């Protein structure tokens, strides 16, 4: 009971801090929605006819930008926030209190995962109502499982990268350098079908592409990829394990001196 109460308090605090930090809130919340709106305005009205029914391309952007939103809320958010808190001595301060580490970390994870889910709901809402995206073919339970697995994978990777980031000044550069190129080569903004094989192969090593593809596949059958869902899940689970091990092994309470 006491642990749950502490978790609730700490979660509420993570929330307050996030929303009051308007810059972080803008980049995490507004950016994926804005990106989806731009892409939908540019290409969303094009359509493919399936069994006599038109399917708008906006149907592709909803799950794709959902992947970006979850990565932003979980990976980018946690990697930046943890490295900045560590540099400012906030983590060390926590360590001197009776608040258990597990609750400190869990509150951050719950905050990130809930935020990611809220963003996905927003993206689906905007996509469907504004840009006529189709949700008729959604495999809801698989889509949700993929979201959950993706969220915890990118949270673990965020913690891992935070552990490897030398200091807070370096964190935006490092985090963006990891995220942006991967988003571009991972079927998020545009399909990679015509990309060179080696580039596709590189993208397939990392979790972003698998996450995007599995969200697309489960969102609408027309977006189903050639690779089987189980392979996507396996690669993501493997990255989750790597992230977890690195995060636990290299976690630091204090900045490196």
């Amino acid at each position, binding site marked *: 009971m006491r642990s749950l109460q*502490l978790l609730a*308090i700490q979660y509420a*605090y993570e929330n*307050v*801090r996030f929303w*009051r*930090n308007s810059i972080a809130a803008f980049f995490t919340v507004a950016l994926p929605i804005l990106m989806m709106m731009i892409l939908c305005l540019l290409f969303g009205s094009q359509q493919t006819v399936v069994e006599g029914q038109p399917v708008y391309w906006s149907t592709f952007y909803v799950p794709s930008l959902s992947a970006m939103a979850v990565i932003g809320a979980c990976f980018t958010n946690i990697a930046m926030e943890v490295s900045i808190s560590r540099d*400012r*001595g*906030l983590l*060390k*301060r926590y*360590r*001197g*209190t*009776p*608040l*258990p580490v597990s609750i400190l970390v869990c509150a951050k994870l719950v905050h990130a995962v809930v935020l990611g889910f809220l963003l996905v709901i927003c993206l689906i809402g905007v996509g469907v109502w504004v840009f006529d995206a189709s949700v008729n073919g959604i495999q809801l339970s698989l889509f949700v499982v993929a979201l959950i697995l993706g969220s915890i994978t990118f949270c673990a990777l965020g913690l891992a990268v935070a552990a490897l980031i030398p200091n807070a000044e370096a964190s935006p550069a490092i985090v963006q350098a990891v995220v942006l190129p991967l988003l571009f080569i991972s079927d998020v903004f545009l399909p990679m079908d015509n990309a060179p094989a080696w580039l596709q192969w590189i993208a397939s090593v990392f979790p972003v592409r698998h996450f995007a593809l599995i969200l697309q596949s489960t969102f609408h059958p027309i977006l189903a990829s050639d690779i089987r869902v189980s392979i996507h899940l396996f690669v993501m689970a493997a990255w989750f394990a790597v992230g977890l091990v690195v995060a636990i092994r290299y976690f630091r*309470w*204090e900045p490196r001196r």
Partner: protein
Amino acid sequence: METSYAIEVKGLRKSYGDFEAVKGIDLRVKTGEIFALLGPNGAGKTTTIEILEGFLTPNAGSVKVLGYDPAKHERVYKERIGIVLQETEVEEFLSVEESIRLVRSYYQNPLPLDDVLAVTGLTDLRRVRPRKLSGGQKRRLDVAMGLAGNPDLLFLDEPTTGFDPQARRDAWDMLRNLRELGKTVLLTSHYMDEVEHIASRAAVMIDGKIVLEGTPQDLAHEAEPTISFRATANLNLPNGLEAEFHEGDSQYLISSSDLVKTLYVLTSWAIENNVSLEDLSITRRSLDDAFVELTQRAENGQER
């Protein structure tokens, strides 16, 4: 089992690579005492206090704080201590009151919010965000957060460094309030006068070792009184008196550990030999002078 000592340290050593920051110190702090660990920068004070807080693990020696081994990071131990670190920022997006509330919620029996605010003088600033606080006010918020859990023992690492004189006096008032609450306090400082004002006991730490320990009065005695007078050069002073002569103002300085005897020897010799001791006076140097002297002594010792 509880002892009457809140902190018991024996033979404590800590090295960073080849550099030994703490070179085997013993320390005992009684329950309810405000104990000051004094010393210049780099003396090993922060290393010592961070070992007691549990942030660092010692290379050798035994450490018991409130009967616990801090290195084990037990939750029961954290419930009973409050930590004010030397350099930490506070959460910039929370007000003074919100920060204190958050920390309070981590403890089973926290101090009432209004008491924390009152003791640290933050009542009027409770709704303010840290960005709008002065350095001294921010430091008081640090102390408030250390105090929020109602700890039996409070660690304060340089609570007043960088303060202007008024802010330091305010901080001393606050620390006296803590004493009235019956808290044991271990603080580090490089101001000797801080000890005179607030500490019940103090230890001077220089170059990783404790060179002196006692009450502020004991430390004051370390500063020997000096007899000074003016007279012509090349006086043939009586046996056993050694004087420092300053040519510029023809001043003699004699420091003495037995003032009465030295004065007797000096004045009776002066009367017998008809020497006039102009401007004869006795000065007792301040603790700060004593502290500087101790530091210099230690540094010279090192050079040899």
